[in-house]
């Protein structure tokens, strides 16, 4: 008997503007000890499904029909009391956003203890001992169980929620996007931890994510959801290697892969379906390139494919092989194939040893004493060059200074040292009364393009606003706006002019945000994580758009992100940042193929692989970056570097330490080069650092 059996589950939300059909007739079952993946883009109903299982639907959500059987009991029919007994004891939950899932005014240990003592009659001492044990299991310092959530970093908080989920050794753990919003390296560590523990406890896992790669690596079976419908399900090896449903094909294509750097990711154009009615046609038909009249008439049933653990809902499954071939071609999806390597032009922006230090706030007394304040060296001697029609990708973990660098080269922050030249003129030229000109030529697109649009302005006003401010092309305003909208792919432009942001889909809104930046015909564009909030297909749309702009409009682009896979897709050159410094720089192809700095190697290795047949060595980089105020001497990466030698700790390697052509790296013992004398070769492969999650140094008092 399977552990969890979901049959024909339908969940709706009632809202002011009608009913939202979030989950429609979904069935699947999870066997004991199995990892089950649930994938699909944003809004496809993944979280709703999880909440229905847990009985955590908000008050306006209700299970319309269907059953959720857990160990033979129907969960939908339980009373509030009975359900409370099942929760956590049998089914635990790792929530989507660890950042705010912990009670801010209760110590982390007490929250876990509460979970234990709600269900088991144990003494405080015993519960505390268990919490210490759990902290140890998830790689947290057991002496910190009395710390409050805000004293932990995002990744550590996620570990606390994992520890909580493990507390009672449940039979099923439901993890809703446990790693979204975390850096690749942390994400990789967390996933690894979940797997390791779950393996040891032999519980089942329902893993929800929009990253197909994570599922490919961790799950045995999966369901792909779209518009609240299961489009395809079965064993991961079957579904992801040989997808039979056009939606799965699209989803898989839009997940960029580092190795295929030069192949354009193919996104699924269009926006998610309208859920206000229960589906009568195939939910995917509006975006499906293979849709026919038959698809219009009814939503296809899930049918078993012969001889395999594989089901697909498509009227045209029989043509799966043909569709698969066509799906890899962007033109199938109506995306023009535009990949002509244009020559890169003159150097547009150049910095030499650029610095941005922040003074740390000091206690009053220290200030009175006149002690020198400490500095946070957010950007510490960065030298870059960006040419026209070139995209320079800047990658690094959170906190490495990427955003500060972006804002400093946009001159939104004053550099505290180093040289800065834009378009042949130095920083002083712009600071000395020419800032307006600079502001027109250089545009910056921030993290969340959605929030940056005023909901009460029409597209015309939104895009026209910069023209007014800069008094640019004011006499042909309308034309400028329309041209720009067409440039970003909002055609026919006239149709959009009078719409408000809420009338546009996510992807369209994002294009409006880009249009706002482009309407002034800038020479230079700085994008700071413009896609981090977007799901895969919207993200790919944006990447393609930027690539096209660089190629056709001759502008230089700096693209800042922690998502190395997207960076590899879109950039010509990459700069890898660590603690305010660029530690490796070069052409994308050469960095992706032969990273030289051990840090780059681990970043690359941390990106998940969407092909389930490929085995990847997981990277487990030790610890977190050191405090940027109190940096170690020598190579700043040495404390986490698996190859660090005494030499590394003595003096800091410059970016020119290794150099082959354009490719440079700051490391004494670069990867991929056979070291002359020392035998470092076997250190290269395999895992970095301690395979057990390394815990922060905890001294002798670790155990009681």
């Amino acid at each position: 008997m399977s552990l969890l059996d979901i049959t024909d589950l339908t969940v709706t939300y009632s809202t002011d503007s009608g009913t939202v059909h979030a989950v429609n007739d979904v069935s699947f079952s999870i066997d004991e000890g199995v990892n089950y993946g649930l994938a699909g883009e944003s809004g496809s109903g993944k979280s709703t499904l999880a909440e229905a299982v847990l009985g955590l639907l908000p008050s306006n959500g209700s299970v319309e029909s269907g059953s959720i059987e857990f160990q033979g009991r129907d969960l939908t029919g339980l009373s509030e009391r009975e359900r409370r007994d099942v929760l956590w004891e049998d089914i635990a939950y790792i929530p989507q956003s660890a950042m705010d899932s912990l009670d801010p005014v209760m110590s982390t240990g007490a929250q876990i203890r509460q979970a234990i003592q709600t269900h088991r009659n144990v003494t405080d001492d015993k519960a505390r001992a268990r919490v210490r044990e759990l902290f140890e299991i998830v790689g947290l310092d057991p002496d910190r169980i009395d710390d409050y959530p805000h004293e932990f970093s995002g990744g550590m908080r996620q570990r606390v929620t994992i520890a909580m989920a493990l507390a009672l050794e449940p039979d099923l753990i439901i993890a809703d996007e446990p790693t979204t919003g975390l850096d690749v390296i942390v994400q990789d560590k967390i996933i690894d931890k979940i797997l390791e523990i779950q393996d040891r406890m032999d519980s089942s896992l329902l893993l929800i994510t929009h990253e197909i790669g994570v599922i490919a690596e961790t799950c045995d079976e999966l369901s792909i959801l779209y518009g609240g419908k299961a489009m395809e399900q079965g064993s991961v090896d079957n579904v992801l290697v040989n997808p039979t449903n056009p939606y799965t094909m699209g989803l898989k294509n839009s997940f960029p892969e580092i190795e295929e750097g030069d192949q354009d990711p193919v996104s699924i154009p269009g926006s998610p379906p309208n859920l206000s009615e229960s589906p009568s046609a195939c939910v995917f038909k509006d975006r499906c390139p293979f849709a026919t009249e038959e698809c219009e008439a009814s939503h296809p049933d899930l049918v078993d494919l012969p001889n395999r653990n594989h089901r697909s809902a498509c009227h045209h499954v029989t043509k799966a092989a043909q569709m698969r071939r066509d799906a890899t071609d962007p033109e199938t999806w109506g995306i023009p194939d535009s990949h002509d390597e244009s020559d890169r032009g003159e150097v547009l922006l150049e910095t030499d040893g650029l610095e941005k230090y922040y003074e740390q706030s000091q206690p009053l007394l220290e200030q009175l004493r006149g002690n020198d304040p400490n500095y946070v060296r957010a950007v510490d001697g960065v030298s870059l060059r960006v040419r026209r029609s070139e995209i320079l990708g800047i990658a690094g973990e959170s906190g490495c200074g990427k955003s500060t660098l972006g804002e400093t080269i946009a001159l939104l922050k004053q550099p505290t040292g180093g040289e800065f030249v834009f378009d042949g003129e130095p920083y002083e030229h712009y600071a000395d009364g020419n800032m307006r000109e600079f502001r027109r030529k250089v545009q910056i697109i921030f993290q969340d393009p959605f929030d940056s649009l005023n909901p009460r302005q029409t597209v015309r006003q939104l895009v026209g606003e910069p023209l007014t401010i800069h008094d640019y092309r004011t006499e042909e305003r309308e034309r400028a706006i329309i041209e720009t909208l067409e440039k970003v792919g909002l055609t026919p432009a006239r149709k959009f002019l009078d719409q408000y942001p809420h009338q546009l889909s996510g992807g369209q809104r994002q294009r409006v945000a880009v249009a706002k930046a482009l309407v002034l015909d800038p020479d230079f564009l700085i994008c700071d994580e413009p896609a981090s909030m977007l799901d895969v297909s919207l993200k790919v749309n944006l990447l393609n758009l930027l690539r096209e702009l660089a190629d056709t409009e001759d502008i230089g682009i700096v693209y800042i992100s922690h998502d190395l896979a997207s960076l590899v897709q879109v950039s010509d050159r990459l700069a890898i940042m660590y603690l305010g410094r660029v530690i490796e720089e070069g052409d994308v192809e050469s960095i992706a193929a032969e990273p030289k700095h051990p840090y780059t190697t681990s970043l690359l290795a941390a990106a998940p692989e969407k092909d389930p047949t490929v085995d990847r060595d997981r990277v487990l980089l030790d610890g977190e970056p050191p405090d940027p105020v109190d940096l170690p001497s020598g190579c700043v990466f040495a404390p986490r570097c698996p190859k660090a030698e005494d030499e590394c700790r003595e003096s800091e390697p410059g970016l020119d330490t290794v150099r082959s052509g354009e490719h440079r790296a700051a490391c004494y013992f670069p990867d991929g080069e056979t070291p002359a004398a020392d035998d470092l070769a076997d250190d290269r492969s395999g895992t970095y650092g301690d395979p057990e999650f390394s815990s922060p140094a905890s001294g002798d008092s670790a155990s009681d």
Partner: protein
Amino acid sequence: MSEFQRFLAKRLAISILLTLVAVSVIFVVLRLLPGSPFESLVTAGNLSQQQITEIRAMYGLDQPMWRQYLSYLQSILLFQFGYSILRSQPVWGVLAPRLVNTLILLVPALVTTAVLSSLLGMYVGWNRGSKLEKLSIIATTFLRSTPVFITGILFVIIFAYNLELVPAFGMRSISASPEGYVETFASLDFLHHYILPFTVSVLYYSGDFLLLARNGVVEKRGSEFLKLHRAKGLSEMQQLARAGRNSMLPILTYFALRLGMIFQGLILLEVVFGWPGIGRELVLAIQQQDYPLVQAAVFIMALAVIVANLVADVLYAYFDPTVSTSGGGAA
């Protein structure tokens, strides 16, 4: 904990500074007022010029301003408030019983309302949209926004005059002549007089606490951490308790501030109910230009507010684990 101590020291220093400022302002304002308490006595022909000079010397009023200021500072900060000019009785002897009368009425009222209204507020916030919620909000807003003497008079009319359940006026019946606090307050007669003003002040203060608590819980209700608490299997009441705990801070702070303001009494209420509290006394003293009395009363009130602010800050830092105790923020 040294960071906390630093924070404490800083706040303390600020409070002391504020006290000095307040004391000086009182001094200046009172000297700027036209007329003097003796004028009325002189015009009434009770005092000769000779006697006035002597009395002025006795009160130190013939000294230069800065000396007056210094000796004023010295004595007021040592809580030596001197003699009331009109009552020829130590100021403290006049004020202390009034202050006690006020506090014995308002402190229990404030505590009661803080506990009850906050609990009610949390409950209605949790059951958002219920009839009880609307009703309680309307009722408390009404009570909060009508001047307290109107509610007071209404209650007096209903409960004292029409129903004749309780006396309308005073703190003890006229025939009682108790000695000392214990005799005054530990009696049924006192309780009888107490109920009505107590109830009115409970109602008067209830609105703010109710709204604070309700808004806090409403805001927390959809939060992710409550969802996790729910997933853990906590009962509805336990979840509500967590939501309540998470909205405690503003309530606590507000309580501390209110507690400070209580030292001013509720003048209108004291007048309506004939309660011999400090608020009424202050009004009288101002009318009669009884400097020492006014000085002392105002000083006590200011001090209470300053101390309450300090306490609020410290409570906040203590109860909110995320507040950075070294952080700046307005004093």
